Every structure is written in C-alpha cells, then in structure tokens.
C-alpha cells in the first residue's frame, strides 16, 4: 500500500500495557496526507509516491497547478517505492495503513545546537580539571603529528556546527494508532523539536 506518511511531532509521554509494562512513546500527528504525484520508471526514471501534508499559507501559480483538485498542502515529500500500481493521485493517506506492532523509520530535522565544541559534538573527554591546567578543560588535544604528514588529516573531528541535520531513527515500533484523530504513537524518541516535520516510513520486510 502506501510507503509512508508525513507528520508533525507532538511530544512524548508514556503508556502502560495491561501487564504493567511501561513504554515511553512519542506522539505524532501523522496525516492526513494526499498523494500529489505518482512517479514511475518510464516517465520519471524512478518510481516514487509524492505526498502532501499540512496547510499552505501561500501558493504560487505553478504550485497551485501542481495541486489542482487536491487540498492546498504546505509540505511535499517523496517516498521511493517499487510498487506504485495501487496508488493514484488524489488518494488520501492516514495512519490506518499501519498496524499495531509494525516497525517504522522516522526522519526529522534534529534540534540545532549552534557552534559546538568537541566535548559536546564528538563526546571527547576534554582535558584534566586539575594539576595546573588552565584553558584545557574542554580542549580537543592533539590534532596530528608534525612534519610528516605536515598537515591535518581530512575528516579530523573538530568543533563546528551541530544539529539542524536530517536524522533517521530506524525500527521504531508502532504502539498506538487512532485514524480519527490522525494520532500515531511510536516507541522511543524521534529527532527534532515539537511541531517539527517528520517523515514516517514503513519498514519493508
């Protein structure tokens, strides 16, 4: 059926099973989405399903043309899938295509941390706190040898911008589904802040 769905992160809470087991879950407002385009091998060179989600604030003329006959959605995202025969433009997608116990991959934009040092960004240990140290507490230490090679190797882990990056968390179990409220509960944490856009892909078996 559908390869995935687009959603918005609501927040985290916990649910209890009858046997008393506690599960930390993330609530996602997933859908409803509309199929805005179906791409196939012959015409586009690859097959994919394009979904639209949310409400657009403003659409320009080409966007309106692309969405003719469908709701004015604010976000368009593509899902690569081999089988597009059962999907057609204008189809409505809601969480009911998932079943309890299914596994999903969830992608989102992680929270931005700004320019972060190596301790925070790469989990370096930093320097000693005592024994006459000054200014070395969160320093990276040596970043290379001397004359040979005479340069810093590429890929050396250093301070820099952290976060605000697309992150995918794989194989999260679906704990709850409520199609009437577009509610999806998955086990564990998902990337990004609340209200962040999430791509939820069903794990292919």
């Amino acid at each position: 059926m559908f390869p995935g769905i687009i959603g918005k992160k609501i927040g985290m809470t916990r649910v209890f099973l009858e046997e008393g087991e506690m599960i930390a879950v993330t609530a996602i407002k997933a859908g409803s989405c509309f199929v805005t385009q179906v791409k196939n091998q012959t015409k586009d060179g690859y097959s994919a399903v394009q979904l639209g989600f949310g409400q657009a604030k403003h659409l320009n003329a080409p966007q309106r043309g692309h969405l003719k006959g469908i709701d004015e959605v604010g976000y368009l995202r593509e899902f690569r899938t081999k089988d597009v025969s059962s999907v057609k433009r204008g189809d409505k997608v809601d969480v009911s295509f998932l079943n309890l116990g299914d596994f999903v991959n969830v992608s989102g934009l992680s929270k931005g941390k700004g320019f972060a040092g190596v301790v925070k960004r790469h989990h370096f240990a930093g320097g000693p706190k005592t024994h006459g140290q000054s200014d070395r507490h969160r320093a990276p230490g040596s970043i290379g040898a001397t004359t040979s090679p005479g340069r810093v190797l590429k890929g050396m882990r250093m301070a820099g911008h952290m976060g605000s990056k697309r992150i995918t968390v794989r194989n999260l179990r679906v704990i709850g589904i409520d199609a009437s409220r577009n509610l999806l509960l998955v086990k564990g944490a998902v990337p990004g802040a609340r209200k962040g856009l999430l791509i939820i892909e069903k794990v292919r078996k």
Partner: protein
Amino acid sequence: MDIRELVEPKMNPNIPQISPGDTVKVSLKISEGGKERLQYFQGMVIRIRRGVDGGSFTVRRVTYGIGVERTFPLQSPLIQSVEVLKHGKVRRAKLYYMRGLSARQARLKERQEKITEQAVYQEEETESS
C-alpha cells in the same frame, strides 16, 4: 497542538484521592513464575507529581533504620488498591525534609479527615499527638 489534547492518560481507577503526608498502604500485583500475588508497601506519601504522563506519587518508609522510597505511576495498572490509613498535617507539597529527620521527629500531627468518599480511616492506628 498540545499532547494533553491528544493522548489522555489512562488513570488507574483503584487509586483514591491522596495528599502529601498521608500514610498509605499500596497493594501491588506481582507476577512471578506464572503466579500472581499481592505485595504491600506502607509508608508516607512525600511527593505527588502531576504531568502529561498522568503523574506519580512517592511513598517513603523506614525499615530497619534504612529509608526506602518507592515511586508509583498513577497510571500503573499493577496497583490493586491504595488504602489511606492516616492523614498527616503538613504545610508543604513535597515532604523531602522527612528524609533528614529521625523516626521520632518524622511523625506528623494528624489532620482531621477530609470529606472524601474513598478515604479509609482507621481509628486504632492513631498516633498520640
């Protein structure tokens, strides 16, 4: 969009209204080796926390001179019953100061019973005040 509007906590109906300072007896379902039995934990409620997840309460007791605190989620389906044995008179919501007190100091003056239909009051356990 707030999570509170979407995910309603499933509160355990066996838990009556309790407040900090109450002495309670919590009956907990324990299943071991395929068999189910009840375990009891009796002590003073030193903290009640509310929140998105339904909240929790913490019960403190002192056994053999060792303070033991146990936190129960208000959603937990394992709680069979909570019996309120006594209401303590307290002026704070969180009774963390009980941790620093010895057994004799840690006794609270009893409060007159609130009008709560579920509260169970036992006269014989009344402490001298």
